């Protein structure tokens, strides 16, 4: 079996306050990661979460304070950057201003004394790979931001590294170019088959490009998983809050069932999925559900009226048309406001007891208009929801700001 491309075992990094006596700064706290060969792996998190420090430890610019880093199965804690089969694409590109594009790309090969003939061929190939074949003789400052980005990419790839590290490489580009480059990067990664470790704070970028994502916060890994896992099954409050829009419903367990849990949110009984951790009735718990998994209507469809317990069988899949969602749970609510956001309408409603939730409704021609104060029912499939322990270790107070409110930050004042 092939060894892992990169493995981190309980890696921590402490910076002693250089300069102004800041004391110690725990940038990375006991991170475990296992990155497979050929994987597009993303470290995602807000600034200061330790993702860049982790990347710099893999590159060799920083050495871990404790824990072990394995590159291709070999312990590499103290190996200097120039002895690692790892190359980096920097956020600011870090192109050498005194060298031409071709000399920049050929830098790594020149350092390793690759013969001139071979060097020229490989530089040309690398430049063609990033579609810059004609610009070899230019200086970096004669190129646009996007072109400089590609040069940085070619300069790293030409060395055929085992792992390519990318530190927010698209951060300096404008939105349109960023989207194009996302596709190109993903495409490139598939073609060259190199392990990519990508650092970003942009969740959309992470979800679009990655095979797997590690969500980080406060120097710790909060969750590792495929984009679908991260999005649909957030492991904790932080992940649920950070990735996409989410509703948080704080409640107490009323009853536990085979396939669902009933919790009391305010004065309303709400059905949630079964928890994947032990729960006792009366315990505090947070229910998480995405706005687009909820539907809103003026009244219940007859099949769902009280007494009709069994959910309808799953409808045959026809991807061409949006399927009516599977529905087996209901909440009563009042409309706070509804905001048109292009393809969707965002309906903010409030439950009995004051908990606000957001429902994302796809805009179709026959849509109803919901007005403030309208009585509505919110329907959903309980298995789309997820229960989290109310107070979770590994997340901080900070991530609990906005308890009981929609995660999109729609202030109640805006509804008035």
């Amino acid at each position, binding site marked *: 079996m092939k060894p892992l491309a990169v493995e981190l075992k309980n890696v921590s990094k402490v910076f002693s306050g250089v300069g102004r006596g800041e004391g110690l700064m725990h940038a990375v706290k006991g991170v475990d990661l296992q990155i497979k060969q050929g994987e597009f792996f993303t470290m995602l998190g807000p600034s200061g979460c330790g993702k860049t420090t982790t990347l710099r430890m893999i590159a060799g610019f920083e050495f871990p304070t404790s824990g072990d880093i394995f590159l291709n199965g070999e312990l590499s804690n103290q190996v200097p950057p120039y002895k690692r089969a790892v190359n980096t694409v*920097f956020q600011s590109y870090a192109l050498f*201003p005194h060298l031409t594009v071709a000399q920049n790309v050929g830098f790594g090969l020149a350092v390793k004394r690759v013969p001139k003939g071979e060097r020229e061929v490989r530089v040309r190939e690398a430049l063609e790979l990033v579609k810059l074949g004609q610009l070899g003789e230019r200086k970096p400052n004669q190129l646009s931001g996007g072109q400089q980005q590609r040069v940085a990419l070619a300069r*790293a790839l030409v060395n055929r590294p085992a792992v390519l590290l990318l530190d927010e490489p698209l951060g300096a580009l404008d939105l349109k170019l960023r989207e194009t480059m996302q596709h190109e990067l993903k495409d490139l990664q598939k073609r060259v088959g190199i392990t990519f470790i990508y650092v970003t704070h942009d969740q959309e970028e992470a979800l679009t490009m990655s095979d797997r994502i590690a969500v980080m916060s406060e120097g710790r890994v909060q969750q590792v998983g495929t984009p679908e896992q991260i999005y649909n099954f957030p492991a904790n409050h932080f992940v649920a809050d950070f990735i996409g829009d989410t509703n948080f419903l704080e409640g107490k367990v009323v009853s536990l069932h085979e396939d669902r849990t009933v919790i009391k949110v305010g004065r309303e009984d709400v059905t949630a999925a079964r928890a994947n951790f032990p729960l006792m009735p009366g315990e505090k718990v947070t229910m998480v559900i995405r706005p687009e998994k909820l539907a809103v209507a003026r009244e219940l469809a007859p099949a769902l009226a009280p007494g009709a317990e069994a959910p309808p069988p799953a409808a045959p899949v026809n991807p061409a048309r949006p399927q009516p969602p599977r529905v087996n749970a209901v909440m009563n609510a009042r409309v706070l406001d509804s905001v048109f956001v292009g393809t969707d309408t965002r309906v903010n409603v409030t439950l009995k007891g004051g908990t606000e939730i957001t429902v994302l409704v796809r805009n179709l021609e026959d849509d109803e208009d919901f007005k403030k104060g309208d009585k509505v029912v919110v329907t959903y499939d309980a298995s789309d929801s997820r229960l989290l322990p109310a107070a979770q270790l590994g997340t901080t107070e900070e991530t609990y700001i906005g308890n009981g409110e929609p995660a999109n930050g729609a202030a109640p004042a805006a509804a008035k």
Partner: protein
Amino acid sequence: MRQTGKWLGLGYYLLLLLFLQLPILLLIVFSFNDSVLLVFPLRGFTLQWYRELLQATELINAAKNSLLIGLVSSVVATVLGGAAAIAIARYNFPGREFFLNIATLPLVIPYVVLAVALLILFQALKIELSLWTIMIGHTIINMPYVMLIVAARLSGFANNLEEAAMDLGATYWGTLMRVTLPISMPALVAAFLSSFTMSFDEFSLAFFLAGTQNTLPVYLYSQLRFPSRLPLAVTTAAVVIMVSVVILLFSEWLRRVGTSRTGKGG
């Protein structure tokens, strides 16, 4: 209204220019004047003083000394100051700010004070005064200039250029030779040239720290006692100024060429 302001401004500028540059211009003019006395009206054009200059062995010796001191002290100042600049601009070591303050201190200490201090130090250490002691003095005053010029240039480049080089396989020395030195080269050359000019013109330190051999400024000063030697002193000064101007223009040109090549990505 605007026009008046413009003319006023121009007039002020010309006056300022005249005030600053007229003495120097006079110096050059009188170096060609056919008279021992530095008075108007001018007597006529002559190259006599320049001819005498070539035969004044003492003066030429002093000039050679100045040249030697200038070259050696500038090379040493450029190497040491450049190294300090790289340390300050590229590494975050404990005591960095303290080091920066100490290293730039010679900028604010009057040269006379520094000269007396060094004189006492050399005597305490029983070091005989010679051209070497002047070189040491000039190296000390030039180092902070070199350091600031080179550090200013390095801080204009992204900090991770060196990291990028190491990432691509260059060792510490490889990085220094292939990246750090090439990008600081224009600043190093400019710093060397300004150091040289500064050393060449410097009087106080050279006066206090000279042994049996004089530098050019000290020699010229000593000649002022003899009225008949005045034209020679004037002519020497004229030559020095012309050479200095050429060197300064060259170093400024280098600095500009350097900055226009900085190329911070955008």
